[in-house]
């Protein structure tokens, strides 16, 4: 039987399949239910300073095999109320990761402090909120802000800090380096991809908020590319997210460089049983392929890593990696353009 445990941010987790933030994340019973269904860890809904009802409906638009769009608007009961829900899960022994969001480094810091007192094992920073000081873009698309927020939070808590990065950027590696500089213990990627649906008959966006976030199968390639680029850019463990619903999806993320993954939208399609099913299928896959532990897979699709298979984490510089990848994968000199 393959060993599914994984170490991320200094913590050992029973398996690498985590419940993504925003899914089954409002009630303590649900968090517990997801863990009982087989998740390796459960991440709370992103919690802010006060209660927020979120946007009016429609907040979700199913897009069939492509996935779905949502703009829930970060509904949450607020950091004062929510610890009651966490308590229900934590008291049952569930490893909970607390997700927080804010509009400034100060807000994140205060939230992290409060969250640290709830019994969670780690804190995930949801950096995908509009930048209060900027113009429409997300807090998390500005490397300076990312670094600042992570550094402040890092100083405010003794818990491991996971920075959750956005795919809506030209350079995921730069954001990851910012998080690493700020002192993050791990990064997770990706949050949803900016998207829109319009109802032609009604001549208006479907979601009440207009622009929303795309998740599900459509974004699996996007998440994989981000994880790949982040793995080439930093040395922290990576939690891969986006469009995961099967064991081979998980293996792809592991090979791209993830040490664990989060599953969100697949819960809509396959129910919470997806955790148990995928855990079993992953273990079977590993047995069938003679893989004893996850470390053999993590990052193994990177040419540098392929060359020294078995080592838990490469230490060579990014640049030497890049060179090596090109020559190993392509076997000829690299063309200059995409």
């Amino acid at each position, binding site marked *: 039987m393959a060993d599914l445990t994984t170490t991320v941010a200094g913590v050992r987790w029973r398996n690498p399949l985590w419940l993504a933030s925003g899914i*089954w994340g409002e009630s303590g019973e649900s968090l517990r239910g997801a863990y009982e269904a087989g998740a390796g860890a459960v991440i709370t809904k992103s919690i802010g300073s006060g*209660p927020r009802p979120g946007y009016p409906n429609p907040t979700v638009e199913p897009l069939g095999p492509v996935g779905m769009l949502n703009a829930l608007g970060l509904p949450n009961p607020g950091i004062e109320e929510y610890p009651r829900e966490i308590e229900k899960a934590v008291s049952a022994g569930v490893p909970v990761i607390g997700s927080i969001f804010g509009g400034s480094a100060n807000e994140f810091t205060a939230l992290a402090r409060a969250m640290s007192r709830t019994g969670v094992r780690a804190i995930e920073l949801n950096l995908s909120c509009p930048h209060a000081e900027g113009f429409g873009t997300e807090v998390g698309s500005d490397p300076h802000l990312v670094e600042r927020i992570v550094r402040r939070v890092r100083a405010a808590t003794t818990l491991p800090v996971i920075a959750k990065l956005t795919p809506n950027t030209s350079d995921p590696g730069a954001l990851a380096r910012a998080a690493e500089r700020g002192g993050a213990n791990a990064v997770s990627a990706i949050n949803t991809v900016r998207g829109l649906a319009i109802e032609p008959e009604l001549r208006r966006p479907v979601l009440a908020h207009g622009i929303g976030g795309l998740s599900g199968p459509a974004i699996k390639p996007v998440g994989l590319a981000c994880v790949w680029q982040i793995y080439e850019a930093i040395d922290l463990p990576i939690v891969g997210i986006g469009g995961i619903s099967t064991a081979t999806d998980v293996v792809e993320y592991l090979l791209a460089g993830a040490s664990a993954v989060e599953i969100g939208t697949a819960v*809509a399609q396959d129910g919470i049983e997806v955790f148990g099913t995928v855990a079993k299928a992953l273990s079977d896959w590993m047995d069938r392929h003679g893989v004893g532990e996850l470390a053999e897979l993590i990052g193994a699709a990177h040419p540098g890593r392929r060359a020294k298979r078995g080592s838990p984490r490469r230490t060579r510089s990014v640049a030497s990696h890049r060179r090596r990848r090109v020559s190993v994968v392509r076997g000829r000199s690299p063309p200059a353009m995409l």
Partner: protein
Amino acid sequence: MRSVVPVDERVAETPSTATLRFDYPPTAEPGQFVMVWLPGDDELPMSLSYVEGPQKGITVKAMGESSARLVRLRPPDRLGVRGPYGRGFDLSPRRILVVGGGSGAAVLAPAAEAAARAGALVDVALGATTREELLFYERFRAMGARLFPATDDGSFGYRGYVSDVARERLGSESYQAVWTCGPELMMRKVLEEAERRSVASFGSVERVMKCALGMCDACALGPFHVCRDGPVLPGRRLLDLEEFGRAFRNASGRLTPFEVRRAPSGRTGRDRGPGR
């Protein structure tokens, strides 16, 4: 994955309630619901009050702003529809007591109709504030059900709670199943009585809904997600839940007690919180 359909027909059912019929071919079962988008306004969960054939129907009671706008729609106003979602009633019992309060009859009528057509004997305890608010009285009659009406003001049938009528019925005859939908306090009483007498009982419950896909957790009720595991849930399970009949999660996810308003007349008001 969402259809925009014109309202084909509107039937005023009671002063506060109207049925809207529209073409929506996906197959559905009695007890399932759809998410109904009133463009430019909210999207609300609505049980299908007509489930058979391509023309479906919903029966809406004006509660807040959005449901009131919905009730006022007229052909050919348009609606967005997605679904059906959730699980409906087990239609196999042959002797059924249906207990409906307010707009609860909307989801019970098509289920009772299907059961009756399959040969079940159906008794219906139907409650409302006043005579003209009794929903689907004629429809239940037309399917051959025996009716036991109750009104808060005594303008028709028993004067008082429909749960009292239900208790009386359960004492007088032996039923294989009790189905109920209405204010949660009413449902709790009915389900308790049924369970006490070991009659299988099912309630159709409401919670705030956003995704209707079993992921966002808005509709969490104990270990259940009403949009996926419900809306029809076994009374036995519901009665185990401390929240049931007492509290719901509001739009921010905060557990919030139902407020029970008492009208000046002394009649029981409706729960604040998810509809009905």
